[in-house]
């Protein structure tokens, strides 16, 4: 009988942290709005992974509940975000976020 391999919680959390930072850097570095949205998705999924890891480590279902909520939020966010992207594309004729700076003081 094979012994169950248990992934330590620290490894899971580190992976979640890496994913989060990658997403964050993507939000800050990319100029294309589509890629910014994708980076945001990565950040959300990093959060979800952290919840799952923490929930499994403590043996509780709360982590999975939180992940379900995050999934829902991500779906809603993509709907609104893509709608905005379409509007921005139509108005500015570009997807470059730096061009949309009319609110500058």
């Amino acid at each position, binding site marked *: 009988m094979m012994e169950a391999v248990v992934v330590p919680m620290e490894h899971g959390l580190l992976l979640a942290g890496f994913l989060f930072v990658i997403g*964050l850097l993507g939000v*800050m570095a990319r100029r294309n709005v589509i890629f910014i949205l994708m980076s945001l998705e990565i950040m959300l999924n990093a959060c979800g992974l952290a919840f799952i890891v923490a929930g499994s480590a403590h043996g509780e279902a709360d982590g999975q509940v939180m992940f379900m909520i995050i999934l829902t939020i991500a779906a809603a966010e993509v709907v609104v975000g893509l709608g905005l992207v379409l509007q921005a594309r139509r108005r500015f004729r570009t997807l470059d*976020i*730096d061009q949309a*700076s009319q*609110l*500058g*003081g």
Partner: protein
Amino acid sequence: MGLTWVQLIWLVPLLPFLSFLTLFLTQGRLPRPLVGVLGAGSVGLAALVVGVIATEYLGAGNTAPVSVQMFQWMNVGGLNPSFGFIIDGLSITMLCVITGVGFLIHVYSTLFVLEEKDYSRFFTYMNLFVSAMIILVLADNLLLLYLGWEGVGVCSYLLIGYWYEDASNGRAARKAFIVTRIGDGFMALGMLLLFTHLGTLEISAVTTAAAATFQTGDTIPTIAALLLLGGACGKSAQLPLQTWLPDAMAGPTPVSALIHAATMVTAGVYLIARMHDLFLLAPVAQLAVAFVGLLTLLVAAGTALTQNDIKRILAYSTISQIGYMFLALGVGAWSAAIFHLMTHAFFKALLFLGAGYVVYSLHHEHDIRQMGGLARRLPIGFASFLIGSAALAALPMTSGFFSKDEILLAAYEHGEWGGLLWAGGALGAFLTALYSFRLVFIVFLGPTRTEPSAPAGWLMGGPLLVLCVLSLVGGFIDPPAALVLPASPPGHDAVMQWVTPAIPIVGVVLAWFLFSSRSFSFGDFATGPGGALRRFLYSHWAMDWLYDRTIVRPYYWLARINRSDAVDYVYAATAGITRVGSSALALTQSGQLRWYAGTMVGGLVIFVAILLGIL
């Protein structure tokens, strides 16, 4: 015996005041003849009432002062002055001068300022002045006196600046107002000191309380008397506050006659005479009065010798003559001072109105170097100047002779300083004769330099003739002021009685000698022999220069550096920091979404680092 008319004393200030109100509220919409009738008529009516009251009061043979209370003015913290008038020999003398001479000057003015576009404004101020001056001399308490005192000061300011379109007239008016205000400040302090120590400002109460509280020579009455002297110096143009009066000649000539010769400038003499009991308690202050008068009369007489403006000569002679009144007050010849005040009002009003008469015919030419040979062309002007100057120089049998003679003899009788005071006064009398007849000879004799137009009408000639008569016989009037004032020192020195009248005659003879030998030359005025002395005297002993350098310019300098007020820096800095901070923070609102995200992350990192204790 009922003094029915005396109870109507309130009519005297009220009549000119009503005329003032009418003229003020109609703002020049009344026709000119009506304005003249109102302006001069109200003062004439007041003079009539004064005449009746004086006859009744003096006829009753009662020398006790009559007090007429109108109403309680205020009642605050023990200070309860009433609006009350006091009628005695002193105030009646002053009233007769103010309303009598004032009426003549008003009549004269109806013609003199007829060409002005602000005819009504002139009489508005003049009536207000007469009203305030009457309140000044009738007041039974120092606060009411101060009200009149400030009232005449304001009217003086308004009338000096009557021709306000010329900026220099405005400057002269401000100078007069500010310089007299310095004196008024002293006077207010003196009043406060008296009130603090005696608890009342009513004049009769002050004198009784002062006599009961203080010993002769105490510090408090000395300081109070010196402060009142400061006020009198400002108003009466005495050293060291006399510099405003010559500039005050910027006003119309009747104003100079009424305010700056006959009435307002003698208010200081009246004040000291009214408070004589206080000055008797302070021999030091009284001696100071005498020396202020002596110095002033000599300084002003010296300056008058060199002036070329007909009105400035008269202005300096006014300062000098008021100096004589102060000298009289200082040596205890109280009634002689008031006597000289009265005769001076007659002959100086005559001289000023005569000057106005001459100037009017010469199209407002003031410079005596442009005048000459006017005796035949303007006989009334010549007569008034001859009589006025004779009285001013105190030639025997003129009005000025009786009063000035009395002053000089009283000065001689003054204890330890008698000889000095007499010698100074006699030197002044000699100079007075010299400069007044220099003026007469240059203006009326010799070659004609400017052709005069026809002499002015009888509205100007008439008052001149009346004043001529008064200047001649005014010395025989015995002013009832002597009834309330202490007697002059008795016993006149036999030799001095003959020497004193001779001095002005010497002056007149010298003036004639200098004139006929053409020594009153103007060409080498500043460069000829003694030019430096003449320039020094011409500049009024460089006093204007001195005040300009020591007071006016430093004050301007202070005002200039204060223009950027140190306190303002605090508020300016607050506003500046806010503005700089705002523009710095506005830079961060770039509209760059990625920049916002970056700063948020940066902030978060720092925050978390702090929470973890790394930073």
